[in-house]
């Protein structure tokens, strides 16, 4: 069964991605995203009975690094692309009423 994305879903996804979308874009994206979804849905066609699920495409596991300090960037370089900074901090518009992590 082909899934489709209605306009409410598009507005929800846009909000999650903090994107401002116009009404016209919502209509257009609903159509486009639905067609992407049904394209990807072809993956439901092959019979996968007995094949263990995987979360990764590479046949590689256990890539670790030792706990060794490597050089960091200087604050100047770290802040180079920041739209605004102050006293070596990134400076952003005030955020309140939301909790992190």
């Amino acid at each position, binding site marked *: 069964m082909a899934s489709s994305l209605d306009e409410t879903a598009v507005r*929800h996804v846009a909000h*999650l991605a*903090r994107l401002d979308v116009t009404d016209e874009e919502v209509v257009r994206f609903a159509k486009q995203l639905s067609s992407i979804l049904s394209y990807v849905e072809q993956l439901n066609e092959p019979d996968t009975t007995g094949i263990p699920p995987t*979360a*990764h*495409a*590479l046949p*590689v*596991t*256990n*890539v*670790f*690094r*030792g*706990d*060794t*300090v*490597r*050089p*960091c*960037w*200087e*604050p100047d370089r*770290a*802040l180079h692309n920041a739209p*605004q900074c*102050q*006293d*070596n*901090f*990134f*400076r*952003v*518009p*005030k*955020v*309140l*009423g*939301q*909790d*992190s*992590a």
Partner: protein
Amino acid sequence: MPEPTLTIRTIIGLEIHVQLNTKTKMFCGCPVRYDAPPNSCVCPVCLGHPGALPVINRQAFTHAVLTGLALNCKIARHTKWDRKSYYYPDLPKNYQISQYDLPLAARGFFDIPVRGRMKRVRITRAHLEEDAGKSLHDLPGCTLVDLNRAGTPLLEIVTEPDLSSADEAYAFCIELQRLVTYLGVSEGVMQKGQMRFEPNVNIAIRCDGREYRTPITEIKNLNSFRHVRDAIAYEARRQLTAWTEDHDYQQDKRPNENRGWNAEKGITEYQRDKESAPDYRYFPDPDLVPVEITDGMLDEIRAMLPELPIARRQRLVSEYGLSTRDADTIVNHRGTADLLEKVIAAGAPADVAGKQFVNVWLKLANDRNVHVTDLGVEPEQIVELARMTADGTINKTAANRLAQVMLQHAEPRASARADAQRSTPSPLHLAQELGLVQVHDTAATEAWVEQAFTANPKAVQDALGNPKKAQAAAGFLRGQVMKLSGGKADPNLVVRLVEKRLAKLRGKG
């Protein structure tokens, strides 16, 4: 109509974030430093620059598995990394790397002492994730962000709702801190935010044969044991009041909510409904490959497990005859307990050494804000001091004084670099030099008693004839004798001789 009887049960689960003790961050080689200048411990990986690739810190992973084992968890043979997406200025990638459906440890338990019994608290899961940066909010109109902390390894531990009072939760947090510092997986310093607690609290009310359950409140981000206890106690009271005023304050009728603890006002404050909780859109992180934990890896990590604090405390009591309270104090710090066992093995009498650790060495260490192991006193000296006290060469007062002198000798040595070879005087030598060797000689002690009685006729009178003051007066006289002896008299002998003399005077009167 009589008031219906209510039975109230508090139901508490905990979510704990523990900062793991590593030199570098979870996925990059930036140092983990608490007090570095802002944005000086950052790189493309922890700044979330495009194209930067995270690589797992093996030390952090090992710490996490070790903690999982100590919490009696099943360790996953296959574990992976997921992206938890949300937008916040201190989260540079707009997602946090975490573990969603395959945590590295699950289904364990942790036994904690509660009112003299052991209580089992089930552990739901423990998983690795990275910390966010820090935001400074107290500026007009803007927020300043420091990303030094971003990417610091965190172990998130989640318990089942098995705790049933604020005091139990408090005990759990303290015991968990002791465990992680014992394992060496975290420094567990609350002031540095290295342990953060989020209790889930609701109450079950039995009333007229029915049970009502209030909505669950998650109290966010508590960073002290006291706040955990106070916030839970407040929240349980608040929920009971809310239910009493409105019996629809129940699960399924009212939403679960997040609340914050206002320590100044001593209240929890509403933050948001859980129903409007963000949609984190977890999905496997394509930048990080899964980890397969082999038998070999697991055996290697299991071999690092030390005897855990609770078991060790019980053994110190049963094996060495320490009091539960002394054992508890000593076990608090692994190195201190190791040192005690070392000196006992080297011949220090266990009971005296145990008491001396608590009453002498730990006191001196606390005064200096260090551990006993950092005092710079050699184990041999600790052994000798305990031996001399046990065999009566010196009394307790002298032992205390001697320990202080030993420290004065140790301190310049500890700070001088090449002087390690310089021999410290033996405690016996020091005791002789300072005239602290106990005097068991009856004639000498009798002379001090005589002197004390002559100098304090009023006390003698009270000791003999004033029933109200007799005991205190005798104690005073004994103290005077000790003083005259310069602390060298054998306290037991002094008791006997003072009594003897008083009896003699009574006979005369």
